[in-house]
């Protein structure tokens, strides 16, 4: 390919992008002469060059498009959506042709007659009709100069006021110019440059500010001799224009374009590869410098000290300069977004404007490439299901024009990008309903989870909020992909939404991926680098620190404040020989909502490291994200927190969030009532099982059939002492009684003292062989027995008469669960609900039990039970029990009549009741 052609291609590609943007702006500001001539110029250049290079198809299309643009410029026709669409279409065709040209070195065969004909037809439309008024408003006022003068006077008046709105702080010159343009535009009948919008650029968007300016302008114009009717007309025009507080994108973009055109003259094109090479060399130089500095540290008197100092400075400078060559303004990533939004608006029949702030914010081009797609995705989402149709918006009292706001700014070594819309916001109720039908949450959670938590569900794979799947979005492969992509580059995305007001996504990403801040850690004599962005906290354990690691059946955990942190030993993960090490450090690592700790021997220091990709032969090891060279020349591996987290078990990318939430929730959720009584050790029972706690004077205790009972709410409630005795103490004493009540029967458990209600992980640590104790837990640093409620229930309720009005229901339930601990937790609930309970550990023995002791009325099973289909033959409805309903996916719920959270008494009993009702009906 000719060099000329290659240069033309590079230039044309940029021009076409600029054209896209300009044309979209043109629709908003149809009269902007500067914009018009710029567009015309670009198209003209393309046409001219194509003609010169003998590219006939390109030249023909460009020529036809130029015709229309010429008409726009001369004011013969005004840019309408139709005509702009046609020009955009031409731009697309030109782009496609350019693409072919680049790929094949020649224009493809064929012609574009239909498009050219359409463009011609538009260009030859009759000139636009003059506005109906006899004389244009602008000339009635007295032309541009009068308006200019009027604006100046009005501003002076406002500033001179002693109180109220004074437009303090706004830059005078630009404000004056912008307002003059806005008023002029309004006089010319172009309502888009409204007063409110113009003022909002200067953060003067309050209605009162707009109104005071209008008043002052009216007064000023009256002084300049304008008729009251003319002023009223102008006021109507300015007021009628869209009063939205917004910055005008075209103005923002225009100013930066000016800057860009100034720079263009001094810039040259450089091959990206050359830049990469430069970057690599600079990185190496940095490393060599580091080595030299380290070597010289031990020889302070070396004659090299001074030159090295200079080398140090120069290298740092070089590195920074090279870094800046890699930096690109973020506008490069979102240049295409206004066009996208425009096309979406046409397709969806909505009115959308895209407002951008901080387009000049620079970031590494590698990062830039990575966020392009997520941003596009988010704009699509915002346009498709964020913004309402104009009708809905009007009904909601919002301006018809929906707004999508893109902003970028630097914050430390991060860049913060916000994508916000002023649409309908996330509808928590809808999300709840949908999550419920998908089995992502339980009914209980649907009620209890906060809106903010419900909002997070849109990041769940396969969750789409759109009611209808449109061609644009709504297929449910949206936000989770966005989040994954952003997290891939060490970023994070947050979401906030107010129903009816809009949704805002905040993305934080590192400025560059090549140099990252990392903790250098030591494990068994090997050093590793851990990206600091993932580490939220360092905790020392063992040795001098008071903290110690604990383990649950061999799995190490750390109690960190009120959380239980799963731990991974780097030494075990890396298969390195175990060392006795008194002191260790834990890197508390956070991945989205999931936290875990990595056990290392030592943490050295934070270093800025240059990330190099791992050799391809090492890429199958999931725990590394790359390698780096340290200051002493050593090559060490960079740890990949995501990969390491995956070693924690049932965590793959898709489930990570829910699974971890499950672990944390199960650990957090179970509320335990801790009491003392009987033997010394504290006892605990899940609070969900408890109906009431009463203080009972022991003198009230009576004995029936030699057993202690209490007259309680119109019936006799048997009492049991935790120690199993029948005498509780002196009659004058008062003791707490825990009441377990199933509406039909109740028993009271007499204890010495209610200690506390704590949230603790319900994870069994010891089996118990004593009657009345299910097992032991560590609760609040003390070994605590879990009360075997079934034992006491049998003891006390066996001869307690059911309430007279309750129908005698003897039903049989079977619990199938591999864990005896879990079985015994649920059994008392069922016993209280009037069931005769049998238990077994697996599906096969359940089937056998059904043969010998069946039939059963209800079957409870661990939802994760294997060979569940064997239960299907037992004909009884099956209730699936979960630890964490949030972690339940739809396919898990299939085959269950109901599902319930095993720690939630009401949930379980509701499920039972629902099935019994169904049965009775």
């Amino acid at each position, binding site marked *: 390919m000719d060099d000329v052609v290659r240069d033309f291609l590079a230039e044309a590609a940029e021009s076409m992008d600029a054209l896209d943007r300009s044309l979209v702006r043109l629709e908003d500001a149809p009269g902007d002469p500067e914009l018009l001539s710029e567009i015309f110029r670009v198209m003209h250049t393309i046409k001219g060059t194509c003609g010169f290079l003998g590219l006939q198809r390109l030249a023909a299309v460009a020529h036809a498009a130029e015709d229309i643009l010429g008409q726009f410029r001369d004011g013969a026709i005004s840019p309408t959506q139709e005509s702009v669409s046609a020009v955009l279409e031409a731009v697309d065709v030109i782009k496609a042709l350019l693409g072919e040209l680049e790929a094949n070195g020649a224009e493809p065969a064929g012609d574009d007659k239909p498009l050219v004909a359409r463009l011609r037809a538009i260009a030859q439309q009759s000139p636009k009709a003059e506005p109906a008024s006899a004389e244009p408003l602008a000339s009635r006022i007295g032309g541009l100069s009068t308006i200019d003068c009027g604006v100046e006077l009005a501003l002076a008046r406002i500033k001179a006021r002693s109180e109220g709105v004074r437009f303090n702080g706004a830059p005078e010159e630009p404000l004056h110019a912008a307002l003059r343009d806005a008023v002029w535009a309004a006089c010319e009948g172009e309502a888009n440059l409204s007063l409110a919008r113009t003022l909002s650029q200067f953060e003067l968007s309050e209605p009162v500010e707009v109104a005071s300016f209008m008043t002052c302008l009216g007064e000023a114009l009256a002084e300049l001799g304008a008729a009251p009717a003319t002023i009223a007309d102008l006021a109507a025009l300015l007021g009628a224009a869209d009063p939205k507080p917004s910055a005008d994108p075209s103005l923002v973009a225009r100013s930066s374009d000016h800057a860009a055109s100034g720079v263009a003259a001094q810039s040259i094109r450089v091959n990206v590869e050359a830049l990469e090479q430069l970057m690599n060399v600079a990185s190496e130089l940095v490393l060599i410098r580091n080595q030299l500095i380290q070597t010289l540290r031990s020889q302070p008197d070396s004659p090299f000290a001074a030159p090295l100092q200079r080398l140090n400075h120069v290298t740092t400078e070089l590195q920074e300069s090279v870094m800046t060559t890699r930096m690109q303004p973020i506008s490069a990533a979102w240049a295409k977004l206004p066009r996208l939004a425009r096309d979406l608006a046409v397709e969806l029949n909505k009115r959308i404007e895209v407002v951008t702030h901080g387009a000049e914010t620079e970031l590494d081009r590698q990062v830039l490439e990575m966020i392009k797609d997520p941003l596009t995705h988010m704009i699509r989402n915002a346009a498709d299901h964020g913004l309402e149709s104009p009708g809905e918006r009007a009904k909601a009292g919002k301006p018809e024009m929906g707004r999508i706001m893109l902003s970028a700014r630097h914050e430390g070594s991060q860049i913060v990008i916000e994508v916000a819309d002023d649409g309908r916001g996330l509808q928590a109720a809808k999300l709840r309903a949908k999550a419920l039908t998908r089995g992502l949450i339980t009914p209980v959670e649907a009620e209890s989870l906060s809106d903010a938590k419900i909002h997070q569900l849109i990041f769940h794979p396969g969750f789409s909020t759109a009611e209808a799947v449109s061609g644009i979005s709504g297929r449910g492969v949206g936000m989770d992909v966005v989040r994954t992509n952003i997290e891939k580059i060490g970023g994070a995305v947050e979401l906030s939404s107010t129903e009816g007001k809009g949704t805002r996504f905040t993305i934080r990403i590192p400025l560059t991926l090549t140099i990252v801040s990392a903790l250098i850690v030591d494990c068994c004599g090997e050093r590793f680098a851990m990206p600091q962005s993932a580490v939220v906290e360092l905790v020392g354990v063992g040795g001098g620190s008071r903290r110690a690691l604990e383990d649950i059946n061999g799995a190490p955990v750390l109690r960190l404040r009120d959380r239980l942190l799963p731990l991974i030993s780097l030494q075990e993960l*890396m298969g390195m020989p175990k060392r006795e090490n008194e002191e260790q450090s834990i890197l508390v690592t956070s991945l989205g909502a999931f936290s875990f700790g990595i056990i290392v021997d030592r943490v050295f220091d934070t270093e800025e490291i240059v990330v190099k990709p791992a050799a391809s*032969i090492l890429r199958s090891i999931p725990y590394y994200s790359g390698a780096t060279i340290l200051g002493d*020349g050593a090559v060490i*591996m960079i740890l990949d927190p995501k990969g390491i987290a995956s070693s924690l078990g049932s965590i793959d990318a898709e489930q990570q969030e829910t699974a971890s939430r499950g672990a944390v929730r199960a650990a957090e959720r179970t509320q335990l009532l801790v009491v003392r009584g009987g033997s010394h050790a504290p006892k605990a029972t899940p609070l969900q099982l408890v109906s009431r706690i009463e203080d009972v004077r022991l003198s009230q205790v009576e004995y029936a059939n030699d057993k202690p009972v209490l007259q309680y709410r119109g019936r006799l409630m048997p009492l049991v002492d935790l120690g199993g005795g029948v005498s509780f103490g002196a009659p004058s004493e008062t003791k707490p009684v825990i009441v377990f009540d199933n509406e039909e029967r109740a028993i009271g458990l007499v204890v010495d003292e209610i200690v506390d209600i704590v949230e603790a992980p319900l994870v069994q640590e010891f089996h118990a062989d004593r009657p009345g104790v299910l097992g032991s837990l560590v609760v609040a640093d003390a070994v605590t027995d879990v009360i075997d409620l079934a034992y006491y229930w049998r003891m006390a309720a066996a001869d307690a008469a059911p309430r007279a009005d309750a129908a005698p229901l003897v039903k049989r339930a079977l619990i199938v669960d591999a864990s005896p601990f879990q079985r015994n937790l649920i059994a008392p609930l069922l016993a209280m609900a009037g069931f005769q309970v049998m238990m077994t550990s697996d599906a096969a023995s359940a089937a056998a039990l059904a043969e010998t002791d069946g039939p059963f009325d209800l079957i409870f099973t661990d939802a994760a039970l294997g060979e569940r289909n064997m239960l299907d033959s037992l004909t009884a409805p099956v209730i699936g029990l979960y630890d964490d309903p949030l972690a339940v996916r739809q396919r898990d719920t299939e085959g269950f009549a109901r599902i319930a959270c095993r720690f939630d008494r009401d949930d379980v009993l509701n499920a039972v009741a629902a099935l019994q009702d169904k049965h009775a009906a």
Partner: protein
Amino acid sequence: MTTAPSSADIDLVTMSVADAHFGVPVLKVRDVLDSPATYPVPLAPAEIRGSINLRGRIVTAIDLRMRLGLPPRDPALPSKCVIVDSEAAGEPYAFIVDEVGDVLTVSAKDYEPNPITLSREWSGLCQGLYRRESTLLLVLDTQAVLRIETRKFERVA
């Protein structure tokens, strides 16, 4: 399998591993280093000795003794390191050998395909041999040497 060197004479960088002699076409060799520091990579296949810092580039070092199934080298003895370019991955790798000899020009008339008695392992790694006066010079297939079985990482339950 064996892209037998054509009739033209070729230049081979010679190296020795244990008692065997190998050659690598000189155009594939980028550099030769003397006992470079290697930094181990935990969990890497056994054949991978570690990473080498080659003037700011990270190069993965493969111990040819391990790769060829030979007994490990006495760590006290010096070793040499031949940097070769991997055509497939577009990145350099280092072969750790006992000794690096001269560059030899060998002629096509001395070429022999791999003898059928050569162990399967070795015949997969060599592209024939050249008869020399005192020794046999096996031609290393560098791409084959780099095809190292990597272990699968199952999730730990």
